């Protein structure tokens, strides 16, 4: 059955680094679709060059609002702009979203404002800037805010689709982009829907559920496992909240073991969300790939992925551990 499924859903090609980071893809997509959202305003705290928002600033300077290096004020002011009819997109680094999370909680989520928070520079993907700049807590923190949707697209093509979907969606959204050049995973036929995970490579022995930059690594891990005759399914879980519980249960039932992979602390993010869903629907062995309750460090993103054990070989090892824990093994 798995063989048949694999034939029906060929693994997408990993086209390598495209030169376009997720943040640049976001900025370009935002500028490209802005004409369809006349109420759109983009808020910046003096890092438009880093978040991708510079593309929007260049195209629509009149709808670009500068707040200076003062994220708390910017975050709450977005609530006020929403209250008078605008569609605000707050752009800053993920760590500074954490700095202003209480403003996101009270003046955006609690007040029921339709504000989009787009966070660049998440995880150790930040690279040389080091541990202070590498947000490893944002998925967990924003996921815990009632009513907050949390998404983390995997490649530039998906980022473009997610940017539009986020603007069309009614309600507060936290979206991760990314700093480093991103792997290209999806072609022109890719579709994106908030709340839906997607099987992007089928398999029968284990399911690798990943988000963001870890999706490319999960595909590489599946290739490593295939060389050892282990059939791994890969799920792109681009929406962390609300998580696609039905798909998670299906994968647990069909493959019997799960690995989660995220550029985030292993606590409370994608792994936590998947484990919660499994505990309710279909308990099975789960292994968590992510930073093991530690902060990041300076280095190149791929070096750091090796160092902190979130690169493809570590996902493959985690898959074998999960398979070995199956009840019948």
């Amino acid at each position: 059955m798995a063989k048949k499924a694999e034939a029906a859903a060929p693994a997408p090609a990993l086209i390598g680094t495209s030169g376009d980071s997720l943040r640049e893809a976001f900025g370009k997509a935002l500028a490209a679709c802005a004409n369809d959202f006349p109420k759109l305003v983009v808020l910046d705290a003096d890092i438009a060059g880093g978040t991708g928002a510079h593309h929007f600033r260049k195209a629509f300077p009149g709808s670009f609002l500068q707040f200076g290096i003062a994220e708390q004020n910017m975050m709450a002011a977005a609530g006020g702009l929403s209250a008078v009819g605008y569609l605000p997109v707050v752009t800053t680094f993920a760590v500074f979203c954490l700095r202003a999370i209480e403003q996101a909680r009270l003046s955006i989520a609690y007040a029921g404002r339709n504000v989009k928070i787009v966070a660049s520079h998440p995880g150790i993907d930040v690279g040389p800037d080091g541990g202070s700049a590498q947000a490893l807590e944002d998925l967990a923190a924003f996921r815990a805010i009632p009513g907050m949707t949390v998404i983390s697209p995997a490649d530039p093509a998906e980022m473009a689709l997610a940017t539009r979907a986020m603007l069309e969606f009614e309600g507060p959204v936290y979206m991760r982009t990314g700093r480093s050049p991103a792997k290209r995973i999806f072609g022109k036929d890719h579709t994106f829907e908030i709340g839906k995970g997607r099987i992007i490579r089928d398999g029968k022995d284990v399911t690798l559920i990943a988000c963001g930059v870890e999706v490319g690594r999960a595909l590489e891990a599946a290739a490593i496992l295939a060389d050892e005759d282990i059939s791994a399914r890969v799920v792109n879980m681009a929406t962390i909240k609300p998580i696609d519980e039905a798909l998670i249960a299906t994968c647990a039932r069909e493959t019997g073991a799960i690995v989660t992979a995220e550029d985030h602390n292993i606590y409370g993010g994608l792994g936590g969300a998947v484990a919660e869903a499994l505990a309710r629907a279909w308990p099975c062995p789960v292994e968590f790939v992510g930073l093991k309750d530690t902060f990041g460090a300076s280095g190149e993103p791929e070096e750091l992925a090796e160092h902190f054990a979130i690169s493809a070989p570590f996902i493959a090892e985690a898959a074998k551990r999960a398979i070995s824990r199956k009840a019948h093994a």
Partner: protein
Amino acid sequence: MNMKPAKAEIQTEGAQRVQPLNISSPSLIEDIAAAARFVRRHVIASIYHAGSGHPGGALSCADILACLYGAELNLWPDSIHDPHRDRFVLSKGHAAPALYAVAAHYGFCDAKDALNLRKLNSPYQGHPHVKDLPWAETSTGSLGQGFSVALGMAMGLKLQHSTARVYALLGDGEMQEGEVWEAAMCAAHHKLDNLCVLVDYNKMQSDDRNENIMGLEPLAAKLRAFNWAVAEIDGHDIKAILSGLHRAAATFEKPAALICHTVKGKGVPYMENLPQWHGSVKLTRQQAEDALAALDATLWEIKELLDGQKS
């Protein structure tokens, strides 16, 4: 009781803002004084019924709120969704009982319902919540944020070329929040002359006097240095408040701050100038009766407020 211009005069886009009030009109002053008295009595009664709440800072801002709702805001119960209405944000959200009371007095909600403070299934939460009460304009209760939300509103209204103005009432202790100074810098930079901040400067905060916790002075000089138009007024002198609001509405390319010198617990002698009445406190029956008597309530009014009898 409402002396503001009729609904027909509410602003529409591009229209000249009207200033139709004679702010020294004795009848207007009397009406606002009556509103402030109503607010203070309602605050005492609602906090008594709730068994908790913050009376000190609700009483100190009663005259300011009465002036705003009674004469300044282009806002009526049937215009709470008008995009060109003026906005008022209670940034010092713990003074919610005073907001509910002034709203009740001017017909935005039912006065008896608004006594149902801090109770499950009541929209009158301990701090204002816009999803429960649309006329609260935003949710507050975390100091500093209301100021930034008001700033965002002012920025957006300016982008829309609306003549609507935005007002935010801040506590003095609130001025210690870093976000307040982020917002102060931002409002001046963007020349938000449609934004007016009022500081309820009662000199006290939760634990003690401001000067013993974290001194604010020189507060006016700080705001002026941030490029705000600043006036200091007696926050219990209705004429002075109305005049200050009038001048604030006339600033050009500068946001306006009115530092309103007030007395914490104003109107209730046993509370005045004592930080222990900041809250959250429980009022005994005797304390509530004494407070209402000090606020010139009649025996019948006291019974009505505390026993919920219909008049």
